[in-house]
C-alpha cells in the first residue's frame, strides 16, 4: 500500500517548489516528483531591448544568487559582439563571483540547511561548559568559545522560547528521531547560526565596492564601471582595495574557523547519510574562474567536464556550442513545443507556456502528465546533476592538486571512502570544500589584481564596441558560468542592435528537472528514491536531501514566449 507525501511549500529555499513522494509500506520513497510552481517569463520580457541592459533584468532572476545572471548575461553579449574585457575586469568579476560563493554557501549551510540537522529545542538542555569544551575541540582557532559565551546564547534562546512566540522555529520537527546531535552540538550550532547571520552582511561590501550595492550589484558589458585610480580618492584606490583585502581575510577565517569545523562535526554524527540521497551519479560542469579569458577553459579554476555513472576515471569533454549536446525537453513540463517532445538547444529555443496541471487549489499533481514549470535539460540525452558536488568530483577526477588535497583530508577526518561522496552528506560536504577553495582563490585573485596594477595596467573597460553602431546586424553568442548552484548558460541572439531571442538554462533547471520523454528522472527526484522516512507527516529526510542541492526555483523556471508567436521564429537546422 503506498502513501503520498506532499511537501508544498518546500521552505528554506529560493522560490516555489513542491515535492510529492510516494512511499512503500515500509515508508521508503519509491517514486518522487519535483515541481517548480512559479514562472515569470523574464526572457520574453528581454525581447526587443538593448543588450547592454540585459544584465540588470537577468540579475533579477534571483536575489539569493545575486550577480550570477548578470555575469552570464554580460558574457553572452560580449561573446556575441566579440568583446574581450580587460584583465582587471576579469579579475574584479572573479572577485565578485567568488565573494558570492563564500557568502551564499555559508548562508546556505547555517540559515537554509542547518535546521534539518540541528535541533534547536534540544539546545536548551545543553551545558554551557561542555559546549565550550566541544567548540574548542572542534575549532581551536575560533576566538569565541567560552562557557560564558555559550551561556549567553543559551539565555537568549531560552528567553525567546519562554516568550511563547516561537517565530521561525514554530510547528517544526524538533524531537524527530532523525535528529542525532547531542544538546551541546545543537547549542554550538545555534550560536554559530547567529554568528554567521552577523557576518554575512559584511562580506558583501566587496560587491558594494565594485558594483555599488548588494543585493544586485551593477555589471557592465565590456568590463566594469568601477574605474581604478590609485592616485585619486573618487575611484577604486588603496583604501577601497584594503577594505576588500580585509573582508577577504575575514571570510577565510569564517570558512576555516567556523563553517568547515561545524560541517565536519555535524557530518560525523550522520554517517548513515553517506548512503542516502546519491541520485543520478552523473555530473556536469561548464567550468569557470578564468585566468586567461572565458575562451580558455584549460586555465579555469573550476575545470570543465562531465562524469557519467560515478566513473571518476573518465572526465568527458563538453562543447557548449554543439546543439546536440545540451537540449531541453518538455514532455512533463507545462510548455508545448512545435515538434512535440523533441528536445531543443537553447540557441534554437522557443517555447509556449501551457499549464496543464490541476486547477488550484489542488491536492496532488499527476506525475504521468505535465507537472512542473521547470523544463528537462539533458546532456547528450543524459540527466545530470550540477553544483558543488559536480565541481568537486570533476576537479578531483581531473587531477587538480587542491581538489585532491581538500577531499582527501575531509574523507580522512570522517573516515570515509570516496563512495561516500555520492550522497546527501557528500553533496553537503562538497559545498563546504569548494567554499574552502573559493576563499583561497579570493585572496589569489586579489593578489593578481595588485600584480596587474603594479605592472602598470589600470584599464577596467573596453569601449571599442560600446556604441551599437559598431555592431554587426545579426549575431549570436553565449555566456557560460559556474554559479554557486551549478552550471549556468545564457544564449543571446542580437538583431538590429536589439535582443531578438534570449534563452537561459539554469543550474536548478538541471537539478529540479522533471522526467523526460524516456522517463529519466531529474536530480532531485532521483536523489529521493530509497530514502526511508521515520514519520511521513514530518518530512525531515526529504528536506535534508532537497536542501543538499540548494534549490533556487526563481532561477529554474524557464522562458515563455507570448502566445501566438509564429513558428517561423524557430531556427531548424
Amino acid at each position, binding site marked *: 500500500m503506498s502513501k503520498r507525501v506532499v*511537501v*508544498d*511549500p*518546500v*521552505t*528554506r529555499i*529560493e522560490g*516555489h517548489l513542491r515535492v510529492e513522494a510516494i512511499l512503500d509500506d515500509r515508508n521508503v520513497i519509491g517514486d518522487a516528483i519535483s515541481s517548480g510552481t*512559479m*514562472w*515569470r*517569463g*523574464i526572457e*520574453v*520580457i528581454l525581447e526587443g531591448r*538593448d543588450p*547592454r541592459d540585459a544584465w540588470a*533584468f537577468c540579475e*533579477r532572476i534571483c*536575489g*539569493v544568487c*545575486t550577480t550570477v545572471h548578470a555575469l552570464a548575461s554580460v558574457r553572452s553579449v560580449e561573446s556575441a559582439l566579440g568583446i574581450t574585457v580587460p584583465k582587471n575586469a576579469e579579475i574584479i568579476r572573479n572577485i565578485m563571483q567568488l565573494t558570492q560563493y563564500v557568502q551564499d554557501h555559508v548562508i546556505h549551510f547555517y540559515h537554509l540547511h542547518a535546521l534539518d540537522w540541528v535541533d534547536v529545542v534540544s539546545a536548551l538542555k545543553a551545558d554551557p561548559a561542555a559546549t565550550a569544551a566541544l567548540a574548542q575541540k572542534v575549532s581551536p582557532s575560533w576566538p569565541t568559545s567560552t562557557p560564558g559565551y555559550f551561556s549567553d546564547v543559551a539565555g537568549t534562546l531560552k528567553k525567546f522560547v519562554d*516568550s*511563547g*512566540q516561537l517565530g*521561525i*522555529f*514554530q*510547528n*517544526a*520537527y524538533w524531537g524527530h528521531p532523525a535528529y542525532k546531535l547531542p544538546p551541546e552540538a545543537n547549542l554550538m550550532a545555534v550560536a554559530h547560526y*547567529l554568528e554567521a*547571520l552577523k557576518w*554575512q*552582511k559584511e562580506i*558583501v*561590501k566587496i560587491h*558594494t*565596492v565594485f*558594483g*555599488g*550595492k*548588494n543585493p*544586485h550589484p*551593477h555589471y557592465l558589458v565590456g568590463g566594469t564601471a*568601477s574605474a581604478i*585610480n590609485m592616485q585619486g580618492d*573618487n*575611484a577604486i584606490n588603496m583604501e577601497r582595495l584594503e*577594505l576588500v583585502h580585509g573582508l577577504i581575510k575575514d571570510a577565510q577565517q569564517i570558512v576555516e574557523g567556523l563553517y568547515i569545523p561545524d560541517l565536519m562535526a555535524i557530518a560525523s554524527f550522520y554517517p548513515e547519510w553517506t548512503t542516502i540521497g546519491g541520485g543520478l551519479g552523473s555530473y556536469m560542469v561548464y567550468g569557470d574562474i578564468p585566468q586567461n579569458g572565458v575562451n580558455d577553459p584549460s586555465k579555469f579554476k573550476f575545470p570543465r567536464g562531465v562524469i557519467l555513472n560515478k566513473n571518476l576515471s573518465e572526465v568527458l569533454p563538453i562543447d557548449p556550442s554543439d546543439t546536440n549536446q545540451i537540449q531541453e525537453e518538455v514532455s512533463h513540463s507545462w510548455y508545448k513545443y512545435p515538434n512535440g517532445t523533441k528536445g531543443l538547444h537553447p540557441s534554437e529555443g522557443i517555447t509556449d507556456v501551457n499549464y496543464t496541471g490541476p*486547477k*488550484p*487549489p*489542488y491536492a496532488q499533481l499527476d506525475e504521468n502528465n505535465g507537472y512542473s*514549470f521547470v523544463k528537462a535539460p539533458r546532456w547528450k540525452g543524459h540527466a545530470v546533476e550540477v553544483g558543488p558536488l559536480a565541481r568537486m568530483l570533476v576537479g578531483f577526477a581531473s587531477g587538480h592538486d587542491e581538489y585532491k588535497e581538500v577531499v582527501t583530508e575531509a574523507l580522512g577526518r570522517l573516515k570515509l571512502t570516496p563512495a561516500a561522496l555520492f550522497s546527501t552528506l557528500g553533496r553537503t560536504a562538497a559545498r563546504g570544500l569548494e567554499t574552502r577553495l573559493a576563499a583561497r582563490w579570493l585572496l589569489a585573485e586579489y593578489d593578481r589584481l595588485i600584480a596587474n596594477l603594479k605592472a602598470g595596467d589600470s584599464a577596467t573597460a573596453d*569601449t571599442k564596441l*560600446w556604441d551599437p553602431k559598431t555592431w554587426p546586424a545579426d549575431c549570436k553568442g553565449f555566456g557560460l558560468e559556474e554559479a554557486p548552484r551549478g552550471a549556468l548558460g545564457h544564449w543571446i541572439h542580437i538583431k538590429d542592435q536589439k535582443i531578438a531571442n534570449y534563452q537561459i538554462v539554469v543550474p536548478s533547471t538541471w537539478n529540479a528537472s522533471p522526467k523526460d520523454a524516456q522517463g529519466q528522472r531529474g536530480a532531485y527526484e532521483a536523489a529521493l528514491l530509497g530514502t526511508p522516512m521515520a514519520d511521513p507527516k514530518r518530512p525531515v529526510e526529504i*528536506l535534508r536531501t532537497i536542501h543538499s542541492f540548494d534549490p533556487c526555483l*526563481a532561477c529554474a523556471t524557464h522562458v515563455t514566449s*507570448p502566445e501566438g508567436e509564429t513558428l517561423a521564429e524557430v531556427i531548424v537546422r
Partner: protein
Amino acid sequence: MDPSDRTLTTYDVLRKHGVDRRSFLRFCTQSAAALGLSAAFVPKMVAAMETKPRIPVLWLHGLECTCCSESFIRSSHPIAQDIILNLISLDYDDTLQAAAGFQVEEIRRKIMKDYKGQYILAVEGNASTKDGGVYCTVGGDTFLNVLQETAKDCKAIVAWGSCASNGCVQAAKPNPTGAKPIRELITGKPIINVPGCPPIAEVMTGVLAYILTFDALPELDRQGRPKMFYGQRLHDKCYRRAFFDAGQFVEAWDDEGARKGWCLYKMGCRGPTTYNSCSTFKWNCGQGWPVNSGNPCIGCAEDNFWDNGPFYQRLSNVLVPGIDSTPDKIGETLLVASGVGVAAHLTVMATRKHFSKPEEPAQSENSGQKE
C-alpha cells in the same frame, strides 16, 4: 496606531478595567502566594504580565527573486538577529522557517485567527493574475488566493520592494503573467510601499523600527512610500552634484572623468528622477552606492523603471507620475536630447547662482519642495 489596538497584556487589561498599579502589584503578590511561589517570583510575574507580545508578522513570497529578504538580513542597525528575536515575531517566512509543507500553512491560519486584526502582512513579490493565477502557487493554491485570504484580517500591509510596490521586472512589458503590485490587488487595508530592487536594508528595518517605536505608521507620500526614506531625489543629495553643476561628466567608461569620479548623468544616471536614500545613508552599512562605484543609477525604486530604458540613455519620456514633490521642471523639459538638456540645465543653474543674493541660498526647482 491606537493604543487600544495593540495586543493587550494582562496589565493593560487590568488597567483598562480601572485597576491601579498598586492594586496590580498586590494582585501579583497574592497570585504568587496562591500558586505556592515564593516572594522571589513576584517580580517575574510582574514582568511577564507587563511584557508586550511581539507583533506577529506574516511574510509572504509571491513572484519574486528574494532580494528583499536578502537585503533585510544585511541590516546593520538593527541587525537581523535582534529583529527576529526581540522586535517582531516572524511567524511565517518560507525563506527562513524550520517547518515545511502543511505545518507552514497551519501556522499561517493560526496566526490569522489568534491575532485577528493585529498581525502585519509583509509581502515580497507579487501575484500573477493571468489564467487564474496558476503561474505562482503555494501549497497547491494560487498565490493570489493566499494573498487575499491573508490580507483579510491583517492590521496593515508592508509591500516590500519594487515587486510588491510597483510590479518590477515580471510586470515589465509584456508582463506575461499579468503580475500586479499589492495596491492593485488589495483594498481596504493600509499599505506601506517600500520600493527598490531591493530596498536598502536599513530602509526596510527602519520602517519596522519606526512602527514599533512610535506605535504609528510612518507618513506616506501619494505613492504610499514613507516620506522619511523616499522624500528627496538622489540627484539633490548626490555627492557628485558639484561635478554636474560644474559640467564635468563621465563621457565613456574608464575615461578621465570616470577615474576622477565625475557626474554620471551622461551615462544615463536616473538620479534626477529617483527618490530613495541611496545617496544619503547608502548601501551595506553605508559603504557605498552604485554612483560612487562608478555605476549610473537605474532608478530601481521608481515605478516602471524597467520600461524607462535603455539605462544608458537619457530619454524624454521618463514619467514622473503622482509624486509629492515638484520635479525639477527645467531639468525635465530639457531631457529631450541629453546634450542640449544638460547644457541648458547647467546654464540655468549657473545663472541662478550668479544672480542670487549672497545671503540667499540658490533657489532651485530641484530642491524637491512641495509648491
